[in-house]
């Protein structure tokens, strides 16, 4: 699998796909997309890279074990759900900033929640695939 074309292509594909996945994540509230798909696309990006360049290289790019993304993502999702409690509203009430932010549009607790999902999905997928690649 480690052909030169594939190798070269994957090096460029990785940032592009990740950017694309973030784009999918951010637009999820208005158009098709969201945390699940975004996370899956990002994972596929890393997996393609690892196939082309070897797992070790991909790992040096990520720097830490993808498993750590799982608790972080879960925490973000939970916190965004619990945030309304701080201002006296019930759990999981949607909160929104008043002004839209450039490029992204309206930002609210739903986006943070989706980001949590995104991170968990990346963590889960990469943990599974990487573990399997390593042990087999």
């Amino acid at each position, binding site marked *: 699998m480690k052909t030169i074309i594939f190798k070269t292509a994957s090096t460029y594909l990785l940032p592009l796909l990740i950017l694309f996945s973030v784009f999918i994540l951010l637009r999820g509230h208005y*158009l098709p997309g969201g945390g699940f798909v975004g996370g899956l696309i990002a994972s596929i990006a890393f997996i393609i890279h690892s196939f082309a360049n070897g797992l070790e290289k991909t790992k040096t790019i990520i720097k830490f074990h993808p498993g750590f993304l799982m608790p972080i993502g879960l925490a973000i999702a939970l916190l965004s759900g619990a945030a309304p409690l701080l201002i006296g509203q019930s759990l999981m009430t949607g909160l929104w900033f008043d002004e839209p932010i450039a490029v992204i549009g309206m930002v609210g607790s739903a986006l943070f929640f989706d980001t949590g999902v995104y991170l968990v999905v990346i963590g889960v997928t990469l943990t599974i695939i990487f573990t399997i690649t390593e042990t087999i």
Partner: protein
Amino acid sequence: MELLLVILIGLLYAAGIYMMLRRSMVKLILGLILLGNGANMLIFLLGRIVKGKPPIIDSAEKMFTEIYADPVPQALILTAIVISFGLQSFAIILVKRAYKITDTDDLDELNTTDEIYE
């Protein structure tokens, strides 16, 4: 098209069950995946199918102005797809592990639980 989908669903279920009844562990997993696909299609079809009207509100509007596809089955299926990935990967690894330890792929030889460790 509905009728064709009904036939496909029946086919997926039949194939899934048939695979699950085999003695090979790998076939068991394939059967599971087929069944999962069948169930997804079933839910999708039961929410009625509509062509080219995704449940997305037009950017200029605040509410739907025309008919739209049912979003609830879609949300359900999306969840199901993602979960089934978790399930599949776990099942595959479990089979691999069981094969390594018991050295058999025959489910009929795994019908006792306690003797593996002896």
